[in-house]
């Protein structure tokens, strides 16, 4: 073990001990905050996956990804408006609406993201690295502009149609919506893992990520594989957008900027290009934010999150689980 590794373990160990002390002395508040962090983290994880997949395969920080996530929420709230849903309670129609809207929004977002890739990134694939980065930022502003013109600058309401049951278990308050976020997030991440590891297209993606030219020589259609990566990333972002809406009930057009930045941080934290890393990074950042808000003070939260990021990168430059990017 090298010196940086020791630093990394000392850092993690201290944090765990401090939190464990809180868990023993104030268990109710600790577990309550833990639930807050878990739900936030699950959503960040879904968005972080899109960043990490795209970076892993073409080494592009897709700044527009956070806005794809927000656009998913906007399209979701619009589509839900076509159903005779009842807010504040859970009806059969609500369930049907959710079952229909989830896949439809995910597919729409997949289609949009493929288009974005085709229009803004593919023509620049062999251009200097900065060029697609700039088009990505441009795409981000473009999508924000579309949402701004479509629904205006104010916050937009997202229907509150999940079951409202909630419980106190040993003084800890949680509801169906909390369980929903965590379960749906976990299911989607698991499906993605299975897809990447077990299917032919998943294998093609891993091959392309490892060495694009060699993959091409082996007969893998690079364009199709990269498009598929964008498609799947957007499926998760679209689902993340709807989950966000269902959970928080308020969305606004600039939401993607912040969520995207945090999710990107989560991806770097977990080791960019690394899919389990992004999921864990999302959870860690969600939990960090919640614990910091509660124990340290909200004005320090950003400092704490990015302080941890710096610490991780100094001691372990490849992130928590190691980078997986194309070989040079």
């Amino acid at each position, binding site marked *: 073990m090298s010196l940086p590794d020791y630093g990394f373990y000392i850092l993690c160990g201290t944090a765990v001990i401090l939190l464990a002390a809180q868990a023993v002395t104030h268990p109710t508040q600790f577990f309550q905050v833990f639930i807050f962090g878990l739900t*936030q983290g699950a959503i960040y994880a879904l968005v972080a996956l899109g960043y990490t997949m795209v970076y892993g395969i073409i080494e592009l920080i897709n700044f527009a990804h956070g806005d794809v996530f927000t656009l998913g929420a906007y399209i979701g709230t619009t589509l839900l408006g076509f159903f005779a849903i009842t807010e504040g309670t859970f009806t059969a129609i609500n369930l049907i609406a959710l079952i229909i809207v989830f896949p439809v929004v995910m597919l729409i977002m997949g289609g949009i993201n493929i288009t974005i890739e085709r229009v803004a990134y593919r023509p620049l694939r062999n251009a200097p690295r900065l060029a697609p980065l700039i088009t990505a930022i441009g795409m981000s502003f473009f999508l924000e502009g579309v949402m701004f013109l479509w629904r205006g600058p*104010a916050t937009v309401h997202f229907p509150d149609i999940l079951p409202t049951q909630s419980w106190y278990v040993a003084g800890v308050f949680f509801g169906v919506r909390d369980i929903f976020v965590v379960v749906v997030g976990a299911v989607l991440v698991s499906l993605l893992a299975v897809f990447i590891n077990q299917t032919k297209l998943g294998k093609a993606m891993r091959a392309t990520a490892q060495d694009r030219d060699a993959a091409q020589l082996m007969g893998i259609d690079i364009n199709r594989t990269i498009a598929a990566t964008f498609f799947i990333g957007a499926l998760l972002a679209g689902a993340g957008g709807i989950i966000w809406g269902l959970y*928080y009930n308020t969305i606004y057009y600039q939401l993607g900027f912040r969520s995207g930045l945090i999710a990107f941080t989560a991806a770097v934290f977990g080791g960019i290009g690394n899919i389990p890393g992004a999921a864990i990074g999302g959870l860690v950042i969600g939990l960090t934010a919640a614990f910091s808000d*509660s124990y340290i003070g909200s004005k320090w939260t950003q400092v704490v999150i990015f302080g941890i990021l710096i610490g991780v990168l100094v001691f372990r430059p490849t992130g928590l689980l190691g980078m997986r990017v194309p070989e040079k």
Partner: protein
Amino acid sequence: MVAFACGGGGGGGGANKGTIKIGSDLPVCTTGGQSTANGIKFAVDQKNKAGGVEGFTIAYQSFDDCRQGAYNADAGVANVRQMLDDSKYLGMVGPYNSAVAKAEIPIAAPKNFVMVSPSNTNPCLTKDIAGCSYHPQDLRAGNPNNYWRVVTTDDYQGPAMADYMYKQLNIKTVGILDDSTVFGVGIAGSFEQEFKKLGGTVAAHSEYKKEQTSDWKSILLNFKSKGAQGVYVGGTDDQNICIPRKQMKDIGWTAPFGGGDGIETTDCIEQASGNESEIYATSAGADATQVSGAKATIDAFRAQFSGANDFGGYTMQAYDAANALMTAIGNAIKANNGNMPTRLQVRDQFAKIQGFKGVIGTYDFDQNGDTSLKIVSIYVVKTGLSADDAKNSTGVCGKKAANACFVWKTQFDFAKPS
């Protein structure tokens, strides 16, 4: 013929001597800004129908200081420059936001361009008090004062809610949250000071930034576990200040939620999303229903502007601001022998206004530009109102939750010794 026409002109109507322009600078992309502009349009239309001002027709132009969906001081400055470049503009109503006023006064003051704000509540714009980062006389750069406002200041809004929560709602421990803006920090600070003075305890004072926060549950839980019986927020809806109200429900916490005029808005009710009741807000002015004779004006307004969100918390303040400006213009025309006055003449006449009879009361302006009316109203959101009650509410209503509206509760008069 000419002689007859002149006779008519002397009587206040008749001959049209030309057009005088007044502008407004408001964030009309928001419901708050648009409903305020409606008040000005209504005042000008009414005046023109009654023959204009001393024979001149008033042309009103609304300028928008929104950029990217929220007020922007640079946009405001550009708008004021546009008005200054056209000599027909003799004054303006606005701006809506104190931060915009801070940027606009320095360019308008050297031109003696009258600004009458219907809604600026930051005390630093007119008063040289501790805690301000600038002096009001510096904003005016040695020129005579050109800025007036018809609402009172945040140093009354915060204390009014502190008093109300402590004495009427019986809240002895409170959690305070501010949005890190000049307005939010200021009003939350004045609330905290007064609440402690009354004997209350502040469980915690937290802050957030819009671009960094979307989950307030940990902060709220912290308030709750430290024994807070209510929450006071310093901030505005465009900084998402009312989303925490919704999240109080998500953590199973039922407690009152108080704030300043930045939450007496349609978007705040939208953000509360299912947890609208027991939101308390102050407004830096009297409720029109509490002033005798105001009802007729409001009814006439509603006949012309019938949309649910056409009437807002500052519509009648804007109506008064426009009328005060037109009064000064009228007096300046008289002082100039019936001719088109200069901006300086309008400014001088505005400074002389005494006992102005407006819809929100009868008031004077002091030499700083502040109104003698130091009334702060308290509103609370009532849900499940009938369509008629919602339509006639003097407070604003929700968009989606159209039957949830701010309803007037009580008022504090800081001009009277208590």
